[in-house]
């Protein structure tokens, strides 16, 4: 019984993680400029991967693999946001203006 619950939970988490990764991917394509795209990508980076990793941990049970997954999780929690920050900060310092509103239609869908 217990096993079944854990198993079901793990699949649920995996599916949820998969969903958020997909959402992030769609977001990266659909969003208009770099900053919003980073925003979308960070959904993949944090929520998506976190759910998947936890799901995998539940799946593997009390094994060495679980600790490795935990280590990966911690590592990603540190590096993911930092890399998003670095990307955004560099873009800003590099002179890339965020697109605010749509007053200027010529900038619509500007590619990077």
């Amino acid at each position, binding site marked *: 019984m217990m096993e079944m619950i854990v198993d079901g939970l793990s699949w649920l988490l995996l599916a949820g993680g998969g969903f958020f990764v997909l959402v992030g991917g769609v977001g990266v394509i659909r969003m208009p400029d770099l900053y919003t795209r980073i925003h979308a990508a960070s959904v993949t980076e944090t929520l998506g991967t976190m759910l998947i990793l936890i799901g995998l941990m539940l799946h593997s049970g009390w094994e060495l693999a679980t600790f490795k997954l935990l280590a990966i999780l911690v*590592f990603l929690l*540190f*590096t993911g946001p*930092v890399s998003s*920050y*670095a990307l955004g*900060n560099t873009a800003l310092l590099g002179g890339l203006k965020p697109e605010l509103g749509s007053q200027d239609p010529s900038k619509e869908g500007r590619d990077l």
Partner: protein
Amino acid sequence: MIALIGLVTLTLVAVAAIATVMATNLFVASMWFGIFSLLMASNFFILDAADVALTEAAVGAGVSTVLFMGALALTGEKEAIRSRVSWFPMAVLGVLALALFVATFQQPMLGDPMAPVHQHVAPWYLEQTPNLINIPNVVTAILASFRGYDTLGEVIVIFTAGIGVLSVLSFKPKRRQTISSEALAAKVRGVQHHSILRVVGKLVIPLLMLFALVVQFHGKYTPGGGFSAGALFAAAVMLYGILEGADRSAKAMPEKVMLRLAAFGATLYTSVGLVCMLLGGAFLDYNVLWPDPVVGQYFGILLVEFGVGLTVTTVLVMIFNAFANRPTY
């Protein structure tokens, strides 16, 4: 299921390769190349080659991307666009691809256990390694002992690349086109204005080094060995250089010391072989190193792997420092 994931990653590999070549901004191209290598590494993992995957991830996606960046900072990132299409190379490539494609139908399928490669030499290694060398990782056993001579050659290749880069960059152009010393300092200073990056990045460095040591000395039991450990260790130093400024990484790891250590690593490898010779065996015959041949093998592999790791680390660090600390002329 795994095969399906393999198909997807392989397709992505192909996409990344095409994107790499199509990108006209070289900075973008080298980023794509890093992605390409990482995808390639994950694909290697799917194909049961964990050692190769680890090395490709560290070398291809890590070190070589950093080297490309270092070079681009000195050479400029825009590629001139050619309007002319050269048909001759395209035609040659087309013929080549066609010939290769037709030949694939006579090649063994992926994973076919009856393929000739799985029939002849390989089973012997899998059978005999536990008896003769007694370490679990057969890849390491072959790398360091059965085909140790190849690996010696590789160490020499990487050493040659190291002194080659030093030699090529030891020439300075006669007339300096100028760059102010402040600009140079700004260039080598790395990302010091990004405190968050520096703090988090520096948290990663010790972990990376620890992992490199595990890969180095635990490589007999798990995937790993001198090559991947060396690349990881060098990556840690490169990370330090990027975060704190290349002049500091050059100070921490001075060129002279690196060169000596690189030469020491290569010499250590050769010396192990020569000692075996002095003890009456063939070159690289670790069996004679100890009364019990299996123990002899153990020590031999330990020493040569250390030599490999040392040389790879120091050479890669040396090359990084040489690139990153070079003023733009």
